[in-house]
C-alpha cells in the first residue's frame, strides 16, 4: 500500500498508508489529520481539502483539470504547488508522496 507523507503547518509529520485508488483527501480524513476537511466528499465542490504538494512531487502528478483549477483559484492562500487533495488519486508510483497542509481550510 502506498504511503503519503503529510506535513502539518507546525512541522508535525504523519505517514499515512492508503489503498491505491483512494484520494489523498480521504486518506487524510481517515487519519483524522488536522488541516484537511473535504466537506463535499471529494466532488471538487468546496476547496476545503487544499494542500501543497511538495516541489519534488508536483510534476509527477497528473495535471489538475479545469474544475479543480477554477476552484483553486479562489481557495485560501493559494500557491504554485496548491492542489485539491480530493483530486489526487493514489497509485503505487505515488508511494512517498509529500503533501504540506495549510493552517486552516476556512
Amino acid at each position, binding site marked *: 500500500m502506498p504511503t503519503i507523507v503529510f506535513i502539518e503547518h507546525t512541522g508535525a509529520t504523519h505517514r499515512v498508508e492508503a489503498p491505491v485508488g483512494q484520494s489523498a483527501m480521504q486518506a487524510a*480524513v*481517515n*487519519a*483524522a489529520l*488536522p488541516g484537511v*476537511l473535504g*466537506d*463535499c*466528499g471529494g*466532488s*471538487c*465542490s*468546496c*476547496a476545503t481539502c487544499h494542500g501543497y504538494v511538495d516541489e519534488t512531487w508536483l510534476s509527477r502528478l497528473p495535471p489538475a483539470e479545469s*474544475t479543480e483549477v*477554477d*476552484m483553486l*483559484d*479562489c*481557495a485560501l492562500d493559494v500557491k504554485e504547488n496548491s492542489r485539491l487533495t480530493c483530486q489526487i488519486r493514489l497509485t503505487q508510483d505515488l508511494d512517498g508522496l509529500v503533501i504540506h497542509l495549510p493552517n486552516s481550510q476556512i
Partner: protein
Amino acid sequence: MSSEACAIIVGAGHGGSELAVALRDQGWAGRIVLMGNETPLPYHRPPLSKAYLAGEANEQSLLLRAEAAYERAQVERWFGVRVEAIDRARHQVTLSDGRELQYHKLALATGGRARTLPASMLSQPCGNVHVLRTLADAEGIRKQLSAGARLVVIGAGYVGLEVAASASKLGLNVTVLESAPRVLARVTAPEISAFYEQAHRQAGVDLRTHMQVEQLEMDSQGRQVQSVRCADGSVFPADLVIVGVGQLPNVELAQAAGLAVDNGVVVDEFTTSSDPDIVAIGDCSNHPSALYGRRIRLESVPNALEQARAAAATLCGKSKAYNAVPWFWSDQFDLKLKMVGLSQGYDQMVLRGEPASRSFSAFYLQGRRVLAVDTVSRPQDFMLAKRFVGERIEVDPAPLADESVSLKSLLPTSH
C-alpha cells in the same frame, strides 16, 4: 472537564459523524457514544443518487471516515439501534433493544427521512417503488436499474433529477413527473428551471410538469407497480418507480421529550435547544440565520458539518456562533450546479453568461444586495459568490451581467 462525562450523539449521518470526532478534537475528555439506526459506518449520502447508482462507488468507498478514525478519537459506536425515548429529567436515553444510557450532554443529529407517497396513491409497500435517502434504498434501486427498463421518477427536486440523470446515462427510459409548473420550483428562478428541463429533455428524459400523480397501478398479481396514473388521465408504464417528494425532519424524539420543535428542533446560534444540555444539528435543526434575519432549516451536507463543529465547541464550553453561508451542490449529467445562499424574496435575477453554453451563473438580488447565486459549471463564480452573499456585498446589476467585468473587481478592495 470530567472524564466521567458522557456525550451521546443520536444519529450517525454526516452531522453525527463529524460531531463525534470534532467533540474529541475540541477537548471532550469523557465518553462519546455515537448512535445510529443504520447498520453501516457513517457514509456520504450525496453519491447515492449519482456515483453509487452508476456502479462507481460501493459501501466501502462511501464511508465518511474509516473505522480507525473513530477508534483513534475513542468514539463508541452503537449502530443498528434506534433511540426510542429521551428522559430529560433523568438525562437518559432508551433504545429499541431495551438498553438505557445516561448522558451529561446529548446531541440530536437525527436528520430527515424521505417523504413517502400517501396511501391513496400507493396502498402498500412494493418491491419496485423506492424512496432514496439511505444506502439500503440505493442498494434496492441499483439492483433494478437495467438498460431499457422504464423508470418513472415522481418529483423533480434534486433527488428526482439526479436519479433521472443517472438512470438515463445507464440506458433506462426515464419519465419524470412533477406536479408544480416547473422543476426545482422551491429553490431556483424560472430561467434555471427552464434550463434544467431542457437539459433533461435533450438527454432523452420525458419530463412532464403540471403532472399530478393520482395512483400507482399494480400488476395483475398485485405485487409490483406496473404503471403510474395521473390526474389528467395519462398513464405511464413503469418497471421501476422512484419517489423524490421531499424530506421530513426526524423531530419526533425531540417532540416527545418536550423540546421546542417548529420545522425542526429549535436551536440558538450555538446549536443549543430549549434544553441547555441538548444540542441539535443538521437537517433536523431549525436555527437562526443572521444573514437572512429569520430561522431556517437546511437540507445540506455543508450545514450539517458546520453545525457539528459549532456544537462540538458549545459542548466543550466554548461559544462559537454558527453563521455559515448556506451552500449546496447538485450534479446532473455534465452540469455542476453549485448554489450559495437562499433566494427567497429576490426582486431581480441577473444572468451572467449564456445558459446555452451550459456554463453560467444566476445572481438573485434584493435591491443591490446579493441574496443568493446559482452557478452552473462555473466554479470560480461559485467561490466568489460565497463572499458576495456572506459579506452582503452590494452591487449594481449591470456589471454582474457583463462578462468583461471580472467578479473579483466587484469585491471591496479592503479585503
